[in-house]
């Protein structure tokens, strides 16, 4: 017997791509401001979403080597856009057609919503392509329809994340770096963007802890998230998650890391935290 979940209409669940450029098998082009670290103009992605969405697949694609980008997804009429998801980060090194990662982002978006996007880059100008795929209701998301995402640790003035330094002792946790002094809303879901500001000198690995609590009294809540890269690899920023993380509003969140590298030039990672309310 089939299992078409109750309450989901028509063929069951629905999917819709937004702004796909079929003529060259790519996505929406979202042009940053010509000035570094400043958001460009809002660009419409779709005038009216076709159904109530429970989330979207986000897949940026970059062609400018070494530049860092952030993208705001917004809703609302032209000229009155409001940020729905702030500062989705993307970075690649040594790529001529790089896609950092496809990531599913739970987010409730009513049918008939106008979606727009704007971006900034660390170099100014150039462009970022982004594919979007809207996903309708899903059992997996039913308990907590996601209503907002807040970003912590993003440094808009340099289009960068917060630096986390593992310190000079290899395979030993470094100091905590604060990502949020106090979260604005309760959260139930989290995602990290991590990237390497300098291409590592050798194949290298990191463990990263997320902690909560006052400075000097941090307590680990997510231990030893692993990421790695190869030397001179064509590197992409990595999204880790979304994963469950239930925290109250007002929580201080910090990160610390250990690495196989001791060089102050190569061991550091940058981190941005996204929390779902």
């Amino acid at each position: 017997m089939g299992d078409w979940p109750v309450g989901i209409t028509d063929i069951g669940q629905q999917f819709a791509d937004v702004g796909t450029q079929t003529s060259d098998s790519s996505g929406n082009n979202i042009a940053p401001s010509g000035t570094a670290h400043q958001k460009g103009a809002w660009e419409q992605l779709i005038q009216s979403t076709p159904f109530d969405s429970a989330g979207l697949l986000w897949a940026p694609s970059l062609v400018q080597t070494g530049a860092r980008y952030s993208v705001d997804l917004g809703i609302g009429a032209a000229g009155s856009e409001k940020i729905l998801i702030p500062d989705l980060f993307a970075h690649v090194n040594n790529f001529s057609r790089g896609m950092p990662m496809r990531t599913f982002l739970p987010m409730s978006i009513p049918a008939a919503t106008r979606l727009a996007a704007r971006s900034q880059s660390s170099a100014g100008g150039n462009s970022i392509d982004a594919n979007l795929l809207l996903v309708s209701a899903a059992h997996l998301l039913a308990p907590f329809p996601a209503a907002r995402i807040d970003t912590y640790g993003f440094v808009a003035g340099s289009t960068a994340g917060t630096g986390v330094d593992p310190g000079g002792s290899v395979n030993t946790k470094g100091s905590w770096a604060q990502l949020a002094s106090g979260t604005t809303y309760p959260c139930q879901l989290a995602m990290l963007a991590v990237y390497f500001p300098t291409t590592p000198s050798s194949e290298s690995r990191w463990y990263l802890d997320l902690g909560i609590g006052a400075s000097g009294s941090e307590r680990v809540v997510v231990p030893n998230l692993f990421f790695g890269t190869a030397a001179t690899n064509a590197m992409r920023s990595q999204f880790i998650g979304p994963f469950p993380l239930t925290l109250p509003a007002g929580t201080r969140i910090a990160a610390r890391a250990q690495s196989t590298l001791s060089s102050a030039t190569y061991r550091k990672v940058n981190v941005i935290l996204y929390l779902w309310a």
Partner: protein
Amino acid sequence: MGSWALGFDHGTKAEAAGLAGSTDLVALSGGSANNTKGAWTQLLAATAFDAHAMLLVFNDPDASFNGLVDIGIGASGSERVLLPDLYIRTETNKFVGRLMVPVAIPAGTRLSARLQADSTVRVIDVGATLFARGFLPPYGLQRADVYGVFVSSTSATSVDPGGTGNTKGSWAQIVASTSRPIRYLIAFISPHDGAQLQDNGWLIDLGIGASGQEKVLVPNIPSTSDNGDEPEHQQYLCLPCHIPAGTRIACRAQSTSTDASDRIIRVALYGFG
């Protein structure tokens, strides 16, 4: 006022599995013959809490190869496959991929893994982070079915966009009939058949329905390849997706490439219910 979510006895819980010394993960070795499973290797002796999701990560293969990884549970010598034949496509020493698996695992469970590869005695590192319930539904997901994988050759289904650039090719069947309902889907997509990768883009449709009458379910999933480098981070697509038992699933794609080798992608599906 704080919000430690009511009705959740877990609060925030997470633990790592598969950690090894020197900021590393546990190394898996493939079987002594091509396309045969190696021995089970323990990732964690006993999980600390009831987990409802697992973030798997693969890293640092010793060579370029195609591999299938089983995640197992149970005592040493009595392991049972929990997640079968997770497909990986590797390049020497590089980060391979990360995927979120929303599967329920009771506290006290021993976790292990094993590898097969299309060449002998290959090695890859594997680790995981387990999470308590959080946003996931109370009933959890309990099983995974794999479609489109060829265990005998450690490969996945080939999808050819055809010789016309940026135009959808023919449908390729991934599975004739799904064996159980799916509520969460992981798609492995690897633009990797070409001997030398170029700067290419793909748009991939997943469709359902009988041959010749396919209806697009998930349209225009994007993928890219870069000149000379692996698409390592984009191998996995994880999203909620409802598909009933008994469904035929097929895949088609378009590509910027018209090269008979470079344009081809490999696809495998994992249905969780």
